[in-house]
């Protein structure tokens, strides 16, 4: 039991680190993704979603909600 939890801990730690790195890259690139969104995207892509398509989806969603988004930006952030 202890070694297993240890392992899980390690895994989580590693995952967090990866997300950290990706977050930084995403900041560099001005993608406007927050952390949860980023991790969702990561998990989607890990599960085999086409990144290009996903990008299109996200862009699409943003365009869709763009006008409202400006109005209450605080709700998202």
């Amino acid at each position, binding site marked *: 039991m202890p070694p297993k939890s240890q392992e899980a801990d390690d895994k989580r730690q590693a995952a967090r680190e990866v997300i950290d790195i*990706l977050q930084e890259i995403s900041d560099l690139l001005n993608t406007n993704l927050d952390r949860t969104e980023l991790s969702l995207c990561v998990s989607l892509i890990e599960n085999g979603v086409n990144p290009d398509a996903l990008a299109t989806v996200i862009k699409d969603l943003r365009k869709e909600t763009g006008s409202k988004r400006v109005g209450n930006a605080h709700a998202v952030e």
Partner: protein
Amino acid sequence: MSNPARNPARGRRLDDALSQLVDGLTPALPISAIQDEDYSDAEEALASAESRRHHALMERAWRILDTHTSTSAPDPGSPAGLGGRRGSFVGTESINNAPDLIKRKLRRENVSPDKAVRFSNLYSRLLTQPVLSQKWGILFLLYKLSASEEPVDGGERSRSPLMDDAHLHNMLGKGGARPRRGTMIDSEDEGPAVSSSASQQHQRVLPAKMERQSSLRHDINRDGVDQAGRSSTEVPATRVEAGVNERPCDEHVRAGSPRPSSANPSGPPRSSGSVEHRLLRDLPFNLQGLSSSNLQFSSSSSLKLPSNLPAPITSLLNTLAEPCLLYKGLSAFVGSEEGGLVNQSLRAAIAIELRAYLSLVATLEAEIRQALVAIGDGTEPQGVRKGGVTLKRCVVWTRDATMALRLMSLIVEEAQSKRGGQLISLIHGFSTSHGDPFVCAFAEKLLEHVTRPFYDMLRLWIYDGELSDPYKEFFVADPEFRPKTDPRRLATSVWEDKYKLDDDMVPSIINQEFAKKIFLIGKSLNFIRHGCDDSAWVEAYSKKASKELRYGDTATLEISIDEAYKTTMARLISLMNGKFNLFDHLKALKSYLLLGQGDFIALLMESLATNLDRPANSQYRHTLTAQLEHAIRASNAQYDTPEVLRRLDARMLELSHGEIGWDCFTLEYKIDAPVDVVITPWASTQYLKLFNFLWRIKRVEFALNSTWRRCMTGARGVLGNVEDKVGADWKRARCVIAEMIHFVNQLQYYILFEVIESSWEQLLEAIRRPDCTLDDLIEAHTKYLNSITHKGLLGSASSSRYGTSTSTSVKQPEESFLSQLHQILKFMLAYKDAVDGLYSFSVAEFTRRQEINAKIETRTAQGQWGLTERDLLSRQSNTRTGTSMASTPDIRPDSAGVDGVNTPLSLSGSNLAADDNMLASLRVRLRELSAEFRSRLTVLLGDLSYQPDVDMRFLGVVMNFNDVYELPKRRKAAGPSARDKEKEKEREKVKRRAAASAAATGSGTEGFVQKEVRRERRDTGTNGPGSASGTGT
């Protein structure tokens, strides 16, 4: 959640994640959005609206995703490999594309490379993480999302990296000189995977391309096929670049890039094409220094051009001829054999450079051949562009190489007359003081090779102390031709003369002070090894400390040399002090030869006194050594180490007729290697000189003291009885003797204490300094000796130091100090002899009176007259001589070699008149001598008081502390010649008086004076220990 039946492969987790994502991205619906709904159920209405919208969005998202899945290839902007939804795009090569895209984007959008660098760091960190399997996908997603900030025109965006390429291309200066290489470098800069395979490169190019113009796609494909079809003799990257570069040529003009220029010159050659092609074909051979059908080397330094060429081509060929000729000359130099190690290494360095040049020629040849083939193919426009290799371009391409060749041949030319360090200095001069950075860099590069043998030698020298320099290139030279020194000086050559520092050969990479240090290190090591028999230490040291020395890291070199210097010097000094007892020897020299050990000297003198009074040829070495042994045994010297005592020896200087033992006796202290490096034979001579001088003073002191003792003891007995007759004489004599004793004491005190001791202190101070080197030691010792001899009134050696202003006038008195002192000492001895004569006269007088009294008593007892006339006449002839001689044997100067029975003729006249006559002459002599002594002393003191040296002036003051002697007033302003003349006159007067007095006192004294003069001559002339031999044997 939506309709799982539509795509069963879609997992639940995906749905969950997507819906969460949609939720996250869609903001909560504002109340206003549901204004039309039932207001009472606002909450519910809002929720239902949201869920409705959610469903709609999800639907839409899935639709997009599915579209991507089904229609993979024709979608613009997606990489060619992104076919399947699951995993198929995760080829290893694709991983590199997204990061590259990102990097380029960052580089384009930001002026400073900070962000790109940061991204590279992050990316490399990401690669090390094992968690993700789809890194590329995520990065691509991020890239896409970031791009969304820009205008949404996909084509524009995707092309930008290539434009970036073009920018880069223009920025690189080298691109102009060697276009193909330049582009190659560029392409390598773009991504790490470029060189891995040509197809991948192509793949990356493709999407951008496809996006741009579909009409061009065919062209590209053809290009790709073309590539595949061709034989793979060339570097693939180069060829791909050709394809890449081609397109921008079509699309947009790129100023400064070499490609457009290639199109222009390809026009003119059409007319004279065949000639140029032939020339081009031959060019690679010419560049390698070989003759061809068109261009022939008529000699090693000239190239014959065909005469029927148009002027532009001739001028081009003229330019191209330079590298050809230079290469030919240089390859001849490389092939040659003679020269030293540095020359050979220069040759090797040039050979390396030539190899680089040859590889350039090889590339050139490949280009030319390809171009010629393309031209030969036909009229295809592609071929014209490909075959754009012209003479002009060859000139441009070889320009750098020509510069390098020119520089090398310059160096080679100048190197003809130089060797070793000079050669290094020459190249170093190019690398440090030449304005052209190209020349500097090139010379620097050469220098690294050229200095290698030099550093090898240096290393061997400072770590092993061995000079390995077969061609005389190092700045330490081993002089084969030794100047013919006399054998006595040869002993020092181990240190002084074995190696010489050759200033001309010191390369400019090492400064003069440093060179001196290096020289000293090696010399010390060598000396330790050969002079001190301590090669074991040297070997251990070299094993321990030896390290590679290279050109470039000057700091390391300096540190290691400083270290070596310290270690070596410390070792050498400790060897000198510890193993070879240098310090003990110095001390022994001081205590024995410089009379530091008072009890020993006193004892030696006492025990030898009777011996030494005899003539020199009756001195025997064994008696001397026996006395020496006795003196050592009975004094504190016995506690000295046997090592020191073993070296002490007593012997006679060379025998010359008529000398007594005092003149020839000398002590000797034997010094052998390697201590003789410090105590050189010259130093030993100085020591001997000092000893002789001190010994003489000591002897005079001894003689005066014994006379004084006799006077004092006699005054109570014998002399008291004859006071009526000679009392006044004795009084005067005592005064004079006291004066002399004072003089001798002061002189001794001055020399032993003021001079020797203070110099000794300085010597000790110099020796005990922590960073003392052997050279310092030698110098300190020399200084010590010089100061002793100079201040001890002996020196002529150091007098030149003071002779700067008035060389002759100062030098003269100083040289004469020794002779003056000798004269004074001589007069003292003469006076002492005269006093002894007076004493014997007094004793004789006393005995005579005693006898007469005794006779009177006996006669009175017999009843006769106490005193008869007969007695008065006969008493001297009968009795006096025997008794007087018995009481005072051997003290009259002329009686040295004669038996006491032989009375001097003047006395054997034996009458009262003669007796009185003798007393009178004695008185005259005593008076003369004392006057002489005084005048001499006055001259000496006068000289002393004008000495530049404080200590010597001090001596004058000490001797004349109460102004007993009136010094001749000397004007400073008086010229040296006037002063000299004055003194000369004075001396003349003195001499005349001395001669007169000598004549007055008879032949004995005369002989004595003569002997003194002779001895003096010998002292100044041949006072070398080497020329002397023991007289005892």
